[in-house]
């Protein structure tokens, strides 16, 4: 330490070294971790790996890989216009560089590259474990929001292949709810198109997006689609679990999306999901969730965890940080991104954009 490190862009040629350096961040094994990097940063439909950076020791010391910060693309829409917003995510540091400026130096390099290219913002949806340190370096906290936790007995939920879950009729909407292991691209994209926007910024979801996310090599996905008697798609729900945990293992199951044409369909999907998904804990964001959905969760014995505004209490809750890069905000049509009420989370209940 003390000699000048080099911070450069990351390419797929660096992936093998990155997988060797990280110690359990992804837990997918060498092949799984490599596939994850390729999926998240190279195959992302909105942004390639151009803003992901790595740090190396000086050439004289072998140019050894010392760290990486990842940046992937998320796509948002408002009033028919789409915006790609980069998100900070996976951080890897060699053990001797933890609690050093290296993480921040790498983020500064990301910001410099974004500024050079005229990209005005970088987001962080609670991915980093360094929120306070980021706040004192100029990041702003857009907000923290609540989530529900339904704790179930070991062995709860459907046993057997997910797509063998029987089709059920929603008690509120009367819709027929069927399971799937793969996304029904036409039905899901169709529901999103039919749900009216409300002037806030929401995650853009289309076939390309659903297809990409379903290819995450380190996650297992569970889909429910609600249809009318006539067969039209009325809503859908997506949940995920770690792909390297068992159904009853310690990691939570997260409902990442629940989009529906009516609150009744949404409530029925939430009920079937919480009764059927694997896992001893099922998490779901509650910001923007319709009252009917909240009632279902309450009836299932959910614990509702709401933010207190105090970092010491709110750390496990979902949050959004934003950093201005210094580039002028050219994208007319965007709301004030630093205000939580400019973000529409009605249809998303987890970090569903990756």
């Amino acid at each position: 330490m003390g000699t000048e490190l080099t911070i450069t862009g990351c390419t797929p040629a660096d992936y093998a070294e990155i997988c060797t350096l990280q110690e359990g961040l992804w837990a997918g094994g060498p092949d799984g971790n490599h596939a994850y990097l390729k999926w998240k940063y190279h195959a992302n439909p909105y942004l390639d790996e151009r803003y992901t950076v790595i740090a190396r020791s000086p050439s004289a010391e072998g140019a050894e890989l010392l760290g990486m910060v990842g940046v992937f693309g998320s796509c948002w829409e408002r009033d028919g216009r789409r915006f790609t917003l980069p998100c900070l995510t996976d951080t890897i540091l060699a053990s001797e560089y933890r609690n050093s400026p290296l993480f921040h130096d790498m983020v500064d390099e990301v910001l410099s590259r974004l500024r050079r290219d005229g990209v005005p913002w970088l987001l962080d949806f609670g991915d980093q474990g360094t929120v306070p340190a980021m706040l004192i370096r100029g990041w702003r906290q857009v907000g923290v929001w609540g989530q529900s936790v339904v704790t179930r007995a070991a062995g709860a939920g459907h046993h057997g292949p997910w797509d063998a879950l029987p089709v059920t009729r929603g008690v509120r909407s009367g819709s027929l709810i069927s399971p799937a292991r793969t996304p029904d691209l036409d039905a899901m994209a169709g529901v999103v198109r039919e749900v009216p926007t409300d002037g806030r910024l929401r995650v853009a979801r289309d076939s390309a997006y659903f297809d990409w996310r379903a290819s995450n090599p380190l996650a297992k996905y569970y889909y429910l689609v609600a249809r009318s008697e006539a067969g039209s798609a009325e809503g859908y729900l997506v949940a995920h679990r770690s792909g390297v945990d068992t159904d009853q293992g310690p990691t939570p199951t997260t409902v990442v999306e629940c989009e529906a044409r009516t609150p009744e369909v949404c409530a029925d999907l939430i009920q079937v999901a919480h009764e059927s998904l694997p896992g001893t804990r099922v998490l779901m964001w509650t910001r923007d969730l319709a009252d009917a959905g909240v009632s279902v969760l309450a009836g299932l014995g959910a614990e509702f965890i709401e933010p207190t505004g105090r970092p010491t209490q709110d750390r496990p809750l979902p949050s959004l940080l934003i950093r201005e890069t210094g580039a002028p905000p050219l994208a007319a049509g965007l709301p004030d991104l630093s205000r939580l009420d400019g973000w529409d989370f009605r249809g998303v209940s987890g970090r569903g954009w990756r």
Partner: protein
Amino acid sequence: MKDGLALTDSEVLDYVHTLLCDLLLRESLPADYDLKDSGALNSIMFLELFVRLETQFGIHITGADVNQDNFRTVDSITRFVRAKRADV
């Protein structure tokens, strides 16, 4: 040790200095030691800092409080604590 609310301003400074030394495993810190530039405090350490300040001084630290004006140096943290105590 006195109750946090009864501490004088210089005792607050001493407490903050000692607390940061504990967290950073150092004997002492220069007055201008920069938490922003050093990157020395990780998330867990910051949360430990907040918990101990909240407990000792009977204050609540909010997300909006966490910025470089308030948490960059021993002096800035001390000023922040004094201002928060005045609000209690």
